[in-house]
């Protein structure tokens, strides 16, 4: 439906976007995930028409919308800080977009109460928006963006400023609401949990560029680059080498040599996934090291294990019985799932 082709935008000397391409499919929730300052918000303002790209084209169902002013694009945008109109109450805020399309009074009232029900704010119509809590403001902002039935809804870090418990609940509500009405949406966030929980597909960005596009599972299982791996929180990166012994490929890592199927040859950068280990001996390979640090993360326990050549971080299920800090630990390792190879990079130590 929406296609972004080779979009570039600079502000003065700073390149905000340097040739970005992706598309949005009808009915899907697409998350744009990336560190702050990578151009996510700029991308939204380009799609909304608040900015003009320096290069590239944006089409809607095959037709360029670059010359369509923002108020005729029929897109909804929910702003990061909500941008509720401070001089209007909840009802007036939500009715604004409907008022702009000239909806008759009766239909307008019906639509507002319908949308208030949808976001669970049925009793809030006459409330002053300045007196609402963060979660309530967020719902009003969502309701306001949804009310005119936008062809595409864009959400810019909508959960950025709410606390963790509330975020869990709002995330769940948001998912339900968007699915109920089969809303096509672009969801911008720097939080991978949010992106993975909500999105059908994820566009992972590095500053100014698209790094990887895929389902949350694809991206989590196979980050395409060191940047992507780093961004997803994978820290076990080491220089290594792929060697060929009698037709069998082996990869040399700081924790041993493992067989691997790869097209790469010679020097590589190795990522060892933290979730590829098990204490119950399920896997063929077993590793021995010293347990040097433990941090409790809820369902998982993160352990730093020191080997002769390196220290690595692994996640064990919290139920599993870890030995005392400082003692030897032996555990199973799944190299097939646990080792990913990338271009060699000098900076990795």
């Amino acid at each position, binding site marked *: 439906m929406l296609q972004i082709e080779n979009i570039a935008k600079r502000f003065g000397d700073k390149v905000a976007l340097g040739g970005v391409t992706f598309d949005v499919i009808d009915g899907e929730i697409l998350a744009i995930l990336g560190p702050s300052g990578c151009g996510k918000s700029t991308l939204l*303002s380009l799609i909304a*028409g*608040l900015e*003009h790209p320096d290069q590239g084209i944006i089409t809607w169902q095959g037709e360029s919308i670059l010359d369509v002013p923002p108020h005729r*694009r029929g*897109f909804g945008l929910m*702003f990061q800080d909500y*941008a509720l*109109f401070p001089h209007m109450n909840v009802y007036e805020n939500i009715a*604004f977009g409907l008022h702009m399309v000239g909806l008759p009074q009766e239909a307008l009232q019906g639509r507002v109460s319908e949308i208030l029900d949808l976001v669970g704010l049925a009793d809030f119509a006459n409330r002053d928006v300045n007196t609402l809590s963060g979660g309530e403001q967020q719902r009003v902002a969502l309701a306001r963006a949804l009310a005119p039935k936008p062809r595409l809804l864009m959400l810019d870090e909508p959960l950025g400023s709410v606390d963790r418990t509330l975020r869990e609940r709002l995330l769940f509500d948001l998912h339900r609401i968007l699915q109920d009405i089969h809303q096509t949406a672009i969801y911008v966030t720097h939080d991978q949990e949010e992106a993975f929980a909500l999105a059908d597909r994820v566009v992972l960005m590095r500053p100014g560029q698209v790094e990887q596009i895929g389902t949350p599972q694809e991206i989590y299982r196979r980050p395409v680059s060191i940047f992507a791996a780093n961004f997803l929180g994978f820290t076990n990166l080491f220089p290594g080498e792929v060697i060929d012994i009698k037709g069998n490929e082996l990869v040399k890592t700081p924790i041993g040599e493992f067989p691997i199927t790869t097209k790469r040859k010679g020097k590589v950068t190795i990522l060892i996934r933290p979730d590829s280990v098990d204490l119950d001996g399920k896997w063929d390979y077993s590793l021995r090291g010293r347990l040097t640090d433990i941090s409790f993360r809820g369902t998982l326990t993160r352990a730093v294990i020191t080997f002769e050549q390196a220290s690595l971080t692994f996640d064990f299920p919290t139920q599993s019985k870890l030995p005392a800090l400082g003692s030897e630990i032996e555990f199973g390792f799944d190299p097939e799932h646990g080792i990913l190879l990338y271009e060699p990079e000098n900076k990795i130590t």
Partner: protein
Amino acid sequence: MDSSLDRGSPAITGMWEYTPKLPKFASLMLLWLAPLIFLALFYFFPLIKILGLSFSRSDTGWTELFIEALISTSIRRVFWFTVWQALLSTLITLAIGLPGAYLFARYEFRGKSMLMALTGIPFVLPALVVAAAFTSLLGPRGWINLALMAMFNLSQPPIQFINTLTAILLAHVFYNTVIVLRMVGDFWSHLDPRLTQAARTLGANRWQTLTRITLPLLAPSIAAAALLVFIFNFTSFGVILILGGPRFATLETEIYYQTISLFNLPLAATLAIIQLMCTLALTVFYTRLTLRLSTPINLRSRRYTQRRLSNWKSRILAACLITLLIGLLTTPLIALATRSITRLEPELGQETLFTPSLTLDFYRELSVNRTSSLFYVPPTTAIAISLGYAGVTILLALALGLPAAWALARYPHTPINKIMDPLLMLPLGTSAVTLGLGFIVALNRPPLDLRTSILLIPLAHTLVAFPFVVRSLTPALRSIRPRLRHAAMVLGAPPGRVFRFIDLPLIGRALLVAATFAFAISLGEFGATALIARPEYPTIPIVIYRYISQPGAMNYGQALALSTILMLVTTAGMMAIERLRIADIGEF
């Protein structure tokens, strides 16, 4: 200045600025078109005309005139006195205003908003009224002298106040304290108190915290306030003329004197240019400073910065400050009002036994034409004329001020705005007499023959009100987060409706403040009006001046009565806007 910050930190604009269809330069020029035409026709054209005319009357070239003026000792004395009294007034104003600013910025107490409203009143009072107020308090027939005379049985008033430097300084402080209170106080109230707390935890004592943290952070706002106060003092007219008397001459009164009494137009024009150069330099400097103020560091919503007066030390400090402020700012006004309803002397021919008594005679007499003067105008008519002029001034000033403020707010750092911003302030620094004369000589032939037009006075008033209007509207427009406009656009509002539904309601209060300024300025303007008003259509200040310049207790009493009416009208206007909780005189 306020409302934006209370809603959260200022939004980062750059990334979200909507690129309009028109290029920036074109839309800027479009916005400046009307204000520029107005300034060109009614400021620069008359100014150039009167200056040119003045110089053409001189026998020598204009460079020689300047050299003559610059080496003349009497002119040099006038110049130095102008600078010196302005500097002294500014320093005293800061000394009183800064502690007050601290009080308003850091403490929350009962009656605060009332006190804030009160401090705003002097600023909009006409100089004539202020002069009348001070004479009724400290003049030869003022309350204090009367009380001392009665107490010690003196035949002469013991305190010589009128025609002293003290009178000038006191009146200037009375006028301008509010500028320091509001400009510094407002900035201070948004300064994050955690900064000073951090300094304290790092081992700084109170004094070190004040000198190393607070004052450096406040410096731009203090400098801006001081500069503005200085500009006002530098060009002050009514106060010097009426309270200073013939002994003191500043550039402004000297221009008046040279023009009206000596008809030495070449010298008057030379002085006007010198004054203009000084104010231009000061305003350029000033607008630079205020630009720095608009991107301040670590601003916090007021909610987090204010405390209650919780201990005795702070309560005593507050009580002293509040008493000082109320004493300074309200006693002259109360003296004026009470003096206007007190009869102290018997009427002519009834010189026997007489005791001072309350009377409304001065008010009653206002509508009696005792001298059968040809140009007698009943004060009710003068009030109606003044209100009519004020109405037109409001419309004109808003119509011109809105696009100018819009241009300044939306494109803050463009070169054209850097030129226009100080330019707008110039009418404030131009001698009202020069301006009035300029109107007379320049607007006298078609298509601009406005000498008999009723628009002439509102045009002059608009010129003076214009900078105030622009400076009230600009911060309000600037405070509207661009995201609100973007939200409206995305929701389907075309540009016109964005302005109608978002900008206009959000600056509603600022519009009201601006309108009130235009109203108060139009009601009180005297210098230019005195020259261009037609005798049969006088404004209130003109009528007051007529009463003042005639001898006798009745005339004096009537001047006081009319001044009181003018004070009440302007005060009512000020109170009305304070009631709407805009505790701001705008950003100057």
